[in-house]
């Protein structure tokens, strides 16, 4: 052990083919001050138990793969450090509110569908040929949507969202942030179409304004703000129907 210290990880294990229900398995591992929780579970896999399943790739908090519940809070394993929890036991579990595929791996197919629903692409407000070059967009215009474009789809916000836990059909924080990312882009002209996804019963209105999503977001996207904006716009839309003389 590098400097003699160790930490115990209580890792939730589940393999549908052999386990009736999830169980906790404890592993004690050596660690150093600069080791992340991801490096901790990698140590387990490489040295103690090759059957442990988890997702990871970039190690630098940008690919969004390694979200887990660490000590009960949704976090990126690569950017959370073992030193803060020594000597443990440190509880490591899959992200809450998602079905478990195996061990620390959850099924995110539902989110992938929601992503498509918000039409996350530019529908140009004014068409422009490539030969005409780039659209002009001032730094101020960029700033209007920039923070919403920082979402890495790590889904910590869904694990933090009580409403998503209650109803997995709820559009939820990250997808709403992406909806706003395009709606607020000066190049885009499809906000009305995108709002269809937000108006519905499972759209933004079922949000109970807890705000925990923004607290756990590792990229300061502030999805709660996106949801609030969308609620306001959705309400304005609703009243606008009467101003226009009804439908």
């Amino acid at each position, binding site marked *: 052990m590098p400097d003699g210290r160790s930490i115990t990880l209580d890792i939730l294990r589940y393999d549908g083919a052999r386990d009736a229900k999830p169980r906790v398995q404890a592993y004690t591992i050596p660690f150093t001050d600069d080791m992340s929780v991801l490096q901790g579970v990698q140590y387990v896999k490489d040295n103690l138990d090759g059957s442990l399943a988890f997702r990871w790739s970039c190690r630098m908090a940008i690919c969004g793969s390694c979200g887990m519940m660490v000590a009960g809070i949704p976090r990126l394993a690569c950017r959370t450090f073992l030193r803060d929890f020594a000597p443990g036991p440190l509880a490591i579990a899959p992200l809450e509110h998602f079905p478990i595929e195996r*061990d620390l791996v959850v099924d995110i197919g539902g989110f*992938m569908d929601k992503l498509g629903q918000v039409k996350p692409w530019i529908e140009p407000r004014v068409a422009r040929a490539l030969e005409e070059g*780039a659209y002009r967009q001032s730094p101020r215009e960029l700033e209007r949507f920039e923070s919403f474009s920082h979402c890495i789809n790590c889904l910590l916000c869904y694990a933090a969202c009580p409403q998503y836990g209650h109803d997995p059909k709820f559009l939820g924080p990250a997808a709403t942030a992406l909806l706003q990312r395009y709606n607020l882009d000066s190049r885009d002209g499809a906000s009305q179409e995108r709002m269809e996804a937000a108006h519905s019963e499972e759209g933004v209105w079922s949000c109970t304004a807890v705000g925990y999503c923004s607290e756990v977001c590792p990229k300061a996207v502030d999805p709660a703000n996106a949801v609030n904006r969308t609620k306001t716009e959705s309400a304005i839309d609703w009243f606008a129907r009467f101003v226009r003389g009804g439908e």
Partner: protein
Amino acid sequence: MEFIQADIVVVGGGGAGLRAAIAIAEADPGLSVALVSKVYPMRSHTVAAEGGAAGVVLDEDSLEAHFHDTVAGGDWLCDQDAVDFFVGQCTREMVQLEHWGCPWSRREDGRPNVRAFGGMAMERTWFAADLTGFHMLHTLFQRSLKHPSIRRFDEHFVCDLLVDQGQASGVLTVEIATGEFRAIEARAVIVATGGAGRVFRQNTNGGIVTGDGMALAYRHGVPLRDMEFVQYHPTCMPGTGLLFTEGCRGEGGTLVNRDGYRYLQDYGLGPPDPWPRKKAMELGPRDRISQAFWHEERKGRTIPTPHGDAVHLDLRQLGRAKLRERLPQICELARDFLGIDPAEAPIPVRPAVHYTMGGIPTDVNGAAPLPGLYAAGECASSGIHGANRLGSNSLAELCVFGRAAGEQAARYVREAAGRNGAALRWQAQDARERVLRILARGGAGGERLAVLRDEMAQSMEHGCGIYRLGHEVEDTCRKLAELKARLDNVALADASAAWNTEWLCAIELGFQLDVAQAMAHSALARRESRGAHQRLDPGCEARDDASFLKHTLAFHAFGGAPRIGWSDVVITRSPPGVRAYGGAARELAHA
């Protein structure tokens, strides 16, 4: 096993694969595209690219200047026809991304901004703060959702390429979540699986960067080209290898040694002033800057850290406001992983493996030597990088060659004959049994996967590092052969079908060992020094155009060492010259 039909299968959902898939959908929405990736596309390693993507925009800049910077940066091993095609398409692709919503950083007048980058004579690197790859990848992925003809196979691992009568005809995949096999039959296959940097120990790459596509093509007789050219990025976090973008230096950061001295001036990149200046000092090319570190370390002028020696990347002179605007991710990485505020203290950095210049050889349309096979992005050797890639050329390459490969594949399948379905199914079954045998071996054998992987990475660093010695490269060649034999005795703890990543890692290690062998044997055969391939043995220390102005070709040989061949470099109008930076370049120009 399920059998699925598509017109074209794209392997890899990073920048190149997504750009190719969109190009096919735009060229002909009637063509069915199967986009296969072992991770969800937005996890692909394009996501980690930081600094920017090249494309000439300034009035005082020119395609000619981008061409010459690239060719000289590649130490004249570039195929100049490919470079010409490339520089001519870059800006169009950057504008295309802009139209698709990529949040490029802007100038006050609303035009996309450009920054200076290493080895580039002008500011021509488009950037989205220091999250350029992230934004390009998410823009391309989200755009791809608009096209119903693109059917995704997320978290499907490709075990083998299917080849019918000398034509690429599909892939065998395993769905990671269930362990179920799916064979996807197609009339063209585009490989866009990225690089292979994980064969080295300290590297900037994500865990998924294991050279899968290179190995798949290689095993089916496609040679891997210029594999000895592996790029060390000079400014990475000691230990983990996490990347601090070249954009740090493009924005005005300096590199200093233990004494606070800007040591690059001692290695043909000075004089240090006036500052800032293009193609000099900290804005020299990556190979030269990483080599300078190697010398500084041996002179004892570096700074010890728990993970090896370092130099300092000093960003203090940029000020907090500019750091926050231009380099937010760098600040975040320094804070979270090192406890350093770059506005207050310098960042310890050292070189780490970053990029594989070589790969599957392609023409300017992305076509590989096997009919029906295309490659784009880092897994390809399109000929534009030569012996050393310039920073910001690879993100542009994803788009330029991703699109070219997609459009060419779309043309090809209109003419291509149907495949022999029965033969493909037999082949898929055979490949399935081969990979299942690894699983069936279970606990027998006693070799541990992680041990083999670490030995491979150590050995690559020993023999194929920044500087190479013939006898050390030979050590590595021997070690890799030994590891390949031992791979057959790996004991797996996991017998499950669902999410058996241990089994998939064993398959990946097989890919990695093949790619590593191609690198090491190519390095041994190239008895000269050029770009990122520097040899210290007598007689090999200098560039030798008479003998080695050639591409290396490594051919796979089952059960043995690769066979090395050579092919010509395309020189159209820039004859090999002296590669000079800083004051030396000015003197040369005036001579």
